[in-house]
Every structure is written in structure tokens, then in C-alpha cells.
């Protein structure tokens, strides 16, 4: 993926750029709004990481508004120290696609970038999802592993659907909380892990053919491998 990072803090920039390169992505960088707008408008990126408070006249939100008004639909992840719920809503209203507050774990950032970058390529009209021999029919709401039908409760279905839509990507606990339960807060305890292990018992009767892996320090990944 080709990523544009608009961020004025040098250490954060170094940390993110290095992490992205190690994960196999290329990253361009702008340390002020003017350069950021120029790069975003002149090059094609898969995803943009945008700080909100930038030096110069253009702050992150007006930059996003400007891009959206000019018809640029590149997914944007807002990375900001402004953590209030209202600030988050403001960011998403301005045209941001996701909002991550500082300080952040790099694993969280990478997982969210993957999800955003992949979204542009995904067709919205899929009716079945498939990972190895695990099949999900979104219309009849049926799930099967090979020939065996699996009965899931509505929330388990939603959880599995999210994991399957992001198959091959790391999905963090926070992403699951936000997208499956619509909880935008940290419930402190490991409730998500419990939901995952319950789901795992249902979709993986034989643990040796595991599809749902735990990724250390990050989250979970559903994949054929």
C-alpha cells in the first residue's frame, strides 16, 4: 500500500514510517498542511494518515474537507491527540473514515490502515464470504464449515462476518468493539477475547485446522493459512 503521512511530530513520523516500511508499505510524508494538501492532490495514495493540529494555516480537518470537496475519495485515518467523543464525531463529519487517538499502539494503527486500504477494493455487493472451507451466506444468514452447518447467535454472526470481511488482516479488539458492538470505549476486561474463544469453539471443532489466529500484542486474524 502507498500511504501518505501528514504529521508534524518528528518522532511519531519516524516511528510510523519505519513501521509501515517493515510491514511492506511505502510511505510519503508531509510535516505541514500545505505540503500535505499538495501531495494528496497530486499523487494517488491508498490511504492517508492525518494529524489534526498542524503547523501553518491549514489544519487537518480543513485539509480533509478541501480534499473531499475536490472529489478526492482516498480513505483517511485521523490520528489525533484530541480524544473527546465530540472531537471524534467532528473528525468523521469532516470526511475522515476512521479516528485513532494518540497515544496509540502501532499494531492498532496498522490494522486500521489495512482495513481502510482494503475497503476501497472491496465490492459492496457480495452475498457470500469464504475463507478456506468456511462459508457465510449473507442473504440466508447461514454459516457452514465444509458440509457441517454452524448455528450462530446474531452477535456471533456479526463478529464472524466482520472477521471474514477482513480475512487475512489483523483485526484489533478495539476495532471489534467499535464495529461489532458499537462500543466506543474500553471495557477494561478481556470480554472480546471470551467472545472470540466462544466463536472459535463453534467454527473450529478440531483445533489443528485453525482459521482464527491470535496475533500477539495486536488482535486476531482470520485466514486460510
Amino acid at each position, binding site marked *: 500500500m502507498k500511504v501518505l503521512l501528514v504529521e508534524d511530530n518528528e518522532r511519531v513520523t519516524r516511528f510510523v514510517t519505519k513501521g509501515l516500511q517493515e510491514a511492506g508499505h511505502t510511505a510519503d510524508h508531509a510535516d505541514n498542511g500545505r505540503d500535505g494538501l499538495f501531495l494528496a492532490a497530486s499523487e494517488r495514495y491508498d490511504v492517508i494518515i492525518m494529524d489534526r493540529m498542524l503547523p501553518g494555516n491549514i489544519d487537518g480537518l480543513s485539509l480533509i474537507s478541501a480534499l473531499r470537496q475536490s472529489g478526492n475519495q482516498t480513505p483517511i485515518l485521523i490520528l489525533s491527540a484530541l*480524544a*473527546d*467523543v*465530540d472531537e471524534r464525531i467532528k473528525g468523521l463529519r469532516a470526511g475522515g473514515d476512521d479516528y485513532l487517538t494518540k*497515544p496509540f*499502539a502501532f499494531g492498532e494503527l496498522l490494522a486500521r490502515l489495512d482495513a481502510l486500504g482494503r475497503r476501497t477494493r472491496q465490492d459492496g455487493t457480495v452475498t457470500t464470504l469464504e475463507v478456506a472451507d468456511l462459508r457465510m451466506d449473507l442473504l440466508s444468514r447461514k454459516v457452514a464449515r465444509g458440509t457441517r452447518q454452524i448455528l450462530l447467535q446474531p*452477535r456471533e454472526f456479526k463478529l464472524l462476518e466482520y472477521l471474514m470481511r477482513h480475512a487475512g488482516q489483523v483485526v484489533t479488539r478495539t476495532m471489534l468493539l467499535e464495529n461489532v*458492538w458499537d*462500543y*466506543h*470505549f*474500553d*471495557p*477494561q*476486561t*478481556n*470480554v472480546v477475547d*471470551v*467472545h472470540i474463544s*466462544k466463536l472459535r469453539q463453534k467454527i473450529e471443532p478440531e483445533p489443528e485446522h485453525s482459521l482464527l489466529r491470535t496475533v500477539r*500484542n495486536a488482535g486476531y486474524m482470520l485466514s486460510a493459512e
Partner: protein
Amino acid sequence: MPFFIRSSATTLAASYVLLGILALILFALPLSYAWRAAVDDSRLQILTEDSQRMGEVFNRRGAAGLVSFINERVGLQIAGERILLLTDSQDKALAGNLPAWPVGVPERTGNYTAPIDLDGHSTMVQLVRTQFPGGYNLLVGRDVGKLSPVTTRFWYGLAGAVAVLLVAGVVGGILIRRALLSRIHSIRQTVSAIMQGELSHRLPTGSSSDELNTLSLTINRMLEQIELLVHGIANVSNAIAHDLRTPLTELRSRLEELSLTRPPPAEAFAEVDAAVADVDRVISIFNALLRLAEIDTGMRRSGFVDVDLVELCARAVEFYVPAAEIRDIDLTFKDESGSLHASGDQLLLAQAVNNLIDNALKYTPPGGKVTVSTMRPNTETAGIVVADTGPGMTATQRERATERFFRGDASRGTPGVGLGLSLVEAVARLQGGSLDFAEQQPGLRATINFPGAR
């Protein structure tokens, strides 16, 4: 004295007195007019009757008889202030109390109110002029310019009433002003004390429901809120100092030790991971404190929407059921309200309910029960109840449970920083409600009361 004049009580009293006097005069004017008209009418009637009676005397006894009749009346002073004059065809005065026909009397017979010349003064009189056969002219009249004693008394009475009103107004104004000033003075003293930092002072209030008292009560409530907030800030600063310092100390020593000992990479990375975990703990405390501050400012109230509390609780329970099953706790949801809606912040309410359930699960031993219910105990309050079969809390713990960073003895060894219930309480307060704890056998019953729920 200038202060007296500028006092709003004085201005008020003075305007009321002026208004009263004006009203009195406006009331007296039509009254006096109607009364005078009635007097004029009856006087005219008397004068007409008089001249008729004299006409009868003339008819029966002739001019000489009338002259003696008039002279008798004037002599007996029955005439009083009346004007009586009989003249012959040459306008020569025959009898009466006027020396000659006065100037200014109209030529025709009839009754008039007109100024005529009496003793060299122009005087307003009411007259009845009659003519008898033979050119005799009779004038019966009365001076109306001169006020009768009754009229005089009327005006004296009015002046007296105005005087009484003035005196009462001034005295009343002084008394009201004195009472008002003493109350305002005490308010001013209290406020000065508060401004100097003595936040525990309150305005004096009485049992009456007058404006000043209502204002004082409102100000007192505001002071309570301010005191609470100021203490809250002081508590938080202390708590931050203590609770952030601990993980920061650990982090610092970990990093310093790492830098000093320079262990082999495997060990070093384990230490770095532990350091990251320390930082995460600091961040989570920080986030919780910021969220609390955000709630306490009350700013989120602007984003209130209609929240279905039954659905919210059902979802929270569904979220925690797998975690409860693992610990062999029976977590159930019971809706006893039928339907419960409140205007509120969806996100904060969800977090509050989740915190309560999380808390209950943490303290309930395996095999226990946690029950979440939405209820409507009466029409005015409604609430969310989370009841567990854990060890409960002592009275002191119940009191301190919502203090920031307070953790009961039972919570030693469990994860958490002691901000969960503070958040629940703050959310309940933002909703205009409260968080209450009650003992049950066994366990604890936590209730979020919503006064505004429907």
C-alpha cells in the same frame, strides 16, 4: 443620603406613593363632578320652588303682599346667602337684599348660571328670573362661587388622604428598604467570604418563597455545585499525583535499570514490553480521567438523544454473558418496566451500565448470580438495577465507592484503577439522576436512578 435616593427600594416606594396619589385624584375628580351636579340640580329645584311660591303670593295678595313677604324673609334672615329681589316695571327695587337690579342678568325669564356684579365683584350665581303681570320682575338666586362647607370638607378630606398616603409611603419605603438592605448586606458578606475562598459559606435562607429567598436557594445550589467541582479538582489532582506516580515510578526504574544493566536482547525486550504495558496503564487512567472531566463539565448534555434503556441493558448483558459463563456466574437481564426511554448520551449510558456489570462480575464468586433489570418503581423515577451475590460493601465503602481511585479491600488483586464507579456516578449525575447502593442478602444492589425516564 444620596445612597438612600439611589436605593431601588426607595425608588419603588416613591413610585408607588405617587401612583397612589394619582389614583386617588383620578378617583376623586369624577366623584366631585357628579356630586356637584347633584347639588346644582337640587339647588335649582329649591330656587324654582321658591319663585313659584312667591308667584302664588303675588297672585293671592298682589305686589304689596309679595313685598311684605320678601321683606319678612330677608328680615328673618331665612334668605341666608340667597339673592332675593323684586323690581317694578321701571326696574326700581321694591324688596329684597340687593340695592338695585344687578348688571349681567339676561333679559329673558328662566334659569341661568352666570357671573353678575354684586357689591362691585363679579360673582358666579345661579338665578331664576320670573316676570309677573304689571312688569314686576322677581330674581331668586344663590351664590355658587362661594364653596359650601360640605365642598370644603370634601377637598380637605382629599388633601388629608393624600397626606396619609405620603406619610405611609415614606415610612413603608424606609422600612422595606431597611429590611431589603439588611438581607442584601448579608448576601454580600457571604459572597465576599466565598470570593476569598471559604467555599463552605451559604446564603441565609428562610422558609418563605419570596423572590430573594428563591434566589438565595438557587445561588446556594450553585455554590454547592461549585464546591463539589472545586473539591473534585483538588481530589483528582491528589489522585493523579498518587495513582499516576506509581506506574510512572515503575516505568522509570524499569527503563533506568535496563540502561544500567544492559541485559541480553531477549531479556531486554521482555523489559521493554513490560514498560509498554506500564505506559498503557498510565494512558488508560488518563483516558478515564479525561472522560470524567468531560462528563463533569456537562458539555455532553448538548448531544442528548432518545435512548432505549431496555435495549441498551439487554445488549450490555449479551456482551458480558460469555465472560460470566466462564466464571460460572449466572448473568441475566429482566425487563420489569415494559419500556424505558430517557434523553441521554448513548455512549456514556452504555459505558455506565457496562461498568456496573463489569464490577458486579468482578466481585461475585463463582456460582453466584448477577441480575440486571430495568424498572419503574413509581411514575417519577425509573432506573437500571444491577444486583449481585458478591460480598457486598460495608457502609463506609458504600459511601466512598464513587470516589475517584477508591478501591475496596475486596478489589485487591483484581485489575482496574478505581475509576469505574466514579464514571457511573458522573454519568448518573449528568442525567440528573443518582447512583445508589443498597445491601441485599447476600450481595450488593446498585441502582442508577433516572428522574427523566419515560
